[in-house]
Each structure stands twice: as structure tokens, then as C-alpha cells.
């Protein structure tokens, strides 16, 4: 029995280490990572606010490929991120290996064009909301939306290729604060 409990302790430690490592990595990135503002693309509110989370789509979804060999669908790659002149993040290029120097994100290639531009998927595309808040968010987005005017962006901390989504902003305000200020539905 003692042996069984000892093995259980080792197994439990291993299992607890998984979420612990996830938390450690995210907290480190949130604390020490550089913040970047990624502009979100206008999305169909019905699709965006389905279920428990906001599905995020970003304005920039492709960039020049900087590798020597052609890349392909589902390949992991590294997107070099910089702050643009307007204060928002811009991906300058996609590399087969981590670019040095500079901040970069681990991305997944969606499509490689023959003209050497690759379409990629950001590693942060979900913003979790409590289920009853999601319909409110959907209404708020629709009520305030003229597609060209909506100022929505996600603040993401980036460090050593890891990213942590810090907050989603709607019209320059954190989403949850924006929702609190919305009048209750009659």
C-alpha cells in the first residue's frame, strides 16, 4: 500500500505539473512580455460570439515568407512582430526558424502563395467569456458597429515565441468594462 501511495504521489505530481507549467509560462509572458496591439478584423457577430468564447480574426493574416524553401499547409513557422507607425502590431515576415533579433510568434501556415506570401493563423484566436455575457457582447458589437469605425483590438504580450492574450478592447475599452456600461436589455 505504501508503494502504491508513493507511486500515486509521483503520478499526481506529474499531472499537476502540466497545468502548473501552463500557468507559469502564461504568467511569465504576461509579466515580462512586450505588449502588442493586434487589430481585429470585422467579424460576423453571429459567428464571432458563438458559445463560450469570442472567435478572434485579425486584420493581418499574411506576410512575406523569409525562408529559402517553399513552406506548406499546417507547417509551424515564426512570425516576426514589430510595432508599426500607428501603434498597432505588424508582422514583417514569416520565418522557418525563430528570427534573431526581435519578438516573434509561433504560428501555423494556412496557405503558401506562389508569390512567396504565406497566410498564417495566430496562436491566440479565442477570448473566453462567461456564457451569459456572450449575447450581451454580441448585441454591443452589433449596436455599435459601423464596420469601418469599430476600434477593436487585442492586446497580446509576446516573449520568446510565446504569447498571452491580455485583453480584448472594443472602441478602446476593455470588453468587460464596455459590457458593464451597456444599458440592460429591455
Amino acid at each position, binding site marked *: *500500500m505504501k508503494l*502504491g*501511495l508513493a*507511486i*500515486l504521489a509521483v*503520478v*499526481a505530481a*506529474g*499531472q*499537476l505539473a*502540466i*497545468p502548473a507549467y*501552463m*500557468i507559469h509560462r*502564461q504568467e511569465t509572458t504576461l509579466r515580462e512580455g512586450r505588449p502588442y496591439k493586434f487589430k481585429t478584423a470585422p467579424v460576423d457577430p453571429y459567428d464571432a460570439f458563438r458559445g*463560450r468564447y469570442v472567435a478572434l480574426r485579425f486584420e493581418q493574416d499574411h506576410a512575406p515568407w523569409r525562408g529559402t524553401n517553399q513552406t506548406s499547409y*499546417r507547417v509551424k513557422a515564426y512570425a516576426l512582430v514589430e510595432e508599426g507607425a500607428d501603434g498597432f502590431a505588424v508582422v514583417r515576415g514569416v520565418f522557418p526558424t525563430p528570427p534573431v533579433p526581435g519578438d516573434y510568434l509561433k504560428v501555423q501556415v494556412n496557405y503558401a502563395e506562389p508569390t512567396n506570401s504565406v497566410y498564417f493563423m495566430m*496562436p*491566440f*484566436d*479565442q*477570448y*473566453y*467569456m*462567461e*456564457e451569459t*455575457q456572450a449575447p450581451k457582447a454580441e448585441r454591443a458589437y452589433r449596436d455599435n458597429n459601423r464596420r469601418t469605425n469599430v476600434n477593436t483590438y487585442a492586446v497580446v504580450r509576446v516573449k520568446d515565441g510565446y504569447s*498571452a*492574450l491580455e485583453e480584448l478592447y472594443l472602441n478602446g475599452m476593455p470588453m*468587460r468594462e464596455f459590457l458593464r456600461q451597456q444599458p440592460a436589455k429591455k
Partner: protein
Amino acid sequence: MSKKNVQWLYEELPGLVGKGILPVETAEKLRQHYGDAETGGGKRWAVVLFGILGGALIGAGVILLLAHNWDDLTRPVRAVISFLPLVIAVTLAAFTLGKRAGSAAWREGVGTFWTLSIGATISLVAQTYNISGDFAAFMLTWSLAALPVVYLLNASTPAMLYWIGVTTWAGHIAWRDQTGWWFWPLAALAVPHVWWVARENRYRPRVGLLLWVLTVCGSFGVGFSMQGRWEHTWMPVFASYYAALYLAGSLWFDEGRAFWQRPLQTVGALGVIVLAIILTFGHEWRRLLEIADWQALLHTPLVIWPGAAVTLWVHAWTRREPVALLFGALPVVVLIATALNDFDGVSLVLMNLYVLGLGVTLIALGVRDRRLGVVNLGMLVTSALIIARFLDSDLSFVVRGLAFIAVGIGFLVTNVVLLRRKGAAQ
């Protein structure tokens, strides 16, 4: 011997002793040899099932309660709470190992809750930090983290959940980077548990349930492991997998009477029948042979299935079991049909004869052994073949008509013979 059989024996003993067939001492020795036949088998089942359900419901309920107030909590608090399901599960597991190790209900219930809590904890952390993640990686991490639960608590529900998890992972990964064949070594990690549970009595329901889940997951695993790289080997690999299942079942699980005690034979037989009927259609062969490369199979890990099927089939010859030989022959028949390479003629006739032979043999053996289930299966196979040919536009009306008349005459003659034999017996 199963507990049900032992119970039957105990019920018979007083009668046998009373009629002088068995001496009293021998009856007593039999009772001592087989021990107690628990009469509360049904109640034990209910306790175990309620234990599993209770564990699963508690796990789900905890998640829902946490979700209700989630948004009002700060991130550090949420991070700490995320650990709660797993911490509670580990505490319960320690209690079970220490104080309730002999209770199957506790082991299965806590094992189920522990397995689900691992996924719940990872999911809660992902929600707290908005981690999008890769679903396939999540399933693999969850499954591998949960595997030790199977052996620590000697619990079978976590094993079944593990196989389902690994199959789900393989399904997602197969379409992406063609490493779905890792399903097999991963699935094999939980197979020692089956051996451990079966070593005392391989016909207990727990073993049957484990094998049902394993064989069905394996059917998906065969497809996923070929995806993207070895799709052209699907015919020999699927044929070998189902044939090997049937042969293994007839070798090691032949005494099971109810069909749920024979998962290997049931899944194997169904797979062989469905696949064989598909291969009686000419256009299937033509479509597949355009991309077929049998020799390539020898250089893939999937060659283990034809190897297993052939080995078990050769062994079946020594046991001279006609049904096992017939079901196990599918990979060999497929190989011969392919080698003949005449898919408008001889090869197609060979496949049709194989299916017809299978159906008729099952009917004949079922009648001989008075097993209605086997007769019905034979009728089903033969009827399916008849319907398939009736609807097969590749054959002319004349050919179909003549073939149906011939087979119909055969059935009528068999009917007359059987009736005469039954009349003579009466």
C-alpha cells in the same frame, strides 16, 4: 469458469447427489474447488455502475458551479481554483488506495472522476489564460496524463476513456501531419490492463467491455493510421485487421456464449462481412487498383496486421475450425483476387463465391449446432449478397437472372433436405 456457470453447477449438485450420480464427497470437493459463487452479482454491477456515474456527475457538477461565478474572480484566484478538481481527485484516489482498494465501485468511480478532472483542470487553465491551443495536443496530453490512473487504481473505465482519447487524437492528427500510426503503440500502452483483468476469468463482463471499446477504437485507428501516407494499403490492412480479430477471438474467447462475451469475434465477423461485400463490386477494385502498391505495405508498420492474420490463420488450420478458417481467409482471398488481376471476371467471381460460401457455411453450421444466431447471421450475409448483386448495374440482367435462379434452387433443395432430416429425427 464464470460465476454464472459455477452457480448453475451448485444448483445441479443436490440433484446429482440425490440420484446417486455423484457421491457427496465429490460434490463437497467441487464446492471447495470453485469457492463461493456470489449470488449478488446483479447488485454488485449496480454498485459499480452507480459509482462510475456518481464520479462522472460530480466532476461535471463541479465544473458547472465554477463556471457560473467565473467572470467575477481574478485571474490568480481562477488559476488556483483550476487545480481543485485534480486535487480533489488525487485525494480521493489516495483514500481509495488506502481504505477502499477492494471496492470496484470506489476504484471505478474515483478513477473516472480522476480521468475527467485532468481534462477539466487543463481546460480551466486554458480558459483563464485564453489559451487557444491545439485540440489534438490537448487530447494527447490528457490521455497520457490519465493513463497511470488505469494501473494505479486497476480501473477499467479510465482505460476505455484513454482509448477513446487516443483515437480522438489520432483522428485529428491524421489529417494534419500523417503520424496517425502512433495510435497503435499508444493504444498498446493500456493493453496490459486487459491481460491483468482477464487472467483470472476472461469471460467476465469487464473484459468484454474493455475489448468492445478496444476493437471499435482499433477500427478507427486502422483508418487514421493510413491517412495521408498509406491509404493505398487499406484493402489488405482492413481485411487483415478484421480477420485477425475474428481468429484471435476464436482462439482465446471461444467459450463465451453471449455475443457480448465475444467482442473480437463479433467486430471481426462484421468487419469481414461488410468488407467482403464491398469487394464484390467491380468498380471498387478498379478504383483502388489504380493506386494500389501492395509491396509498399511491407515497408510500413501496418504490415503487423497481415502478419498477425496469416499467423493466426495458419494456427486455425491445426484446430480445424471451419468458421474461423472462412472468416480468417479474407486477406488471402483478397490477395489471390488481386494477383489474378481480372476484375471484370474471375477475381470478381472469386469474391462473390467467398461471400456466398461464408453465408451458406454459417447457415449449415447454425442448423447443425442448433444455434439460431449463427443461422440468422448466415441468412443476413447471403441476403446482403443477393441484394448487392440485384442492384449491381455492372452485371447484365441475364447473368443476374441465371445466378439468382441457381442459388434459389440451391436454397430450396437445402430446405427439402433439412425438412426430411428433421422429419426422420422426429
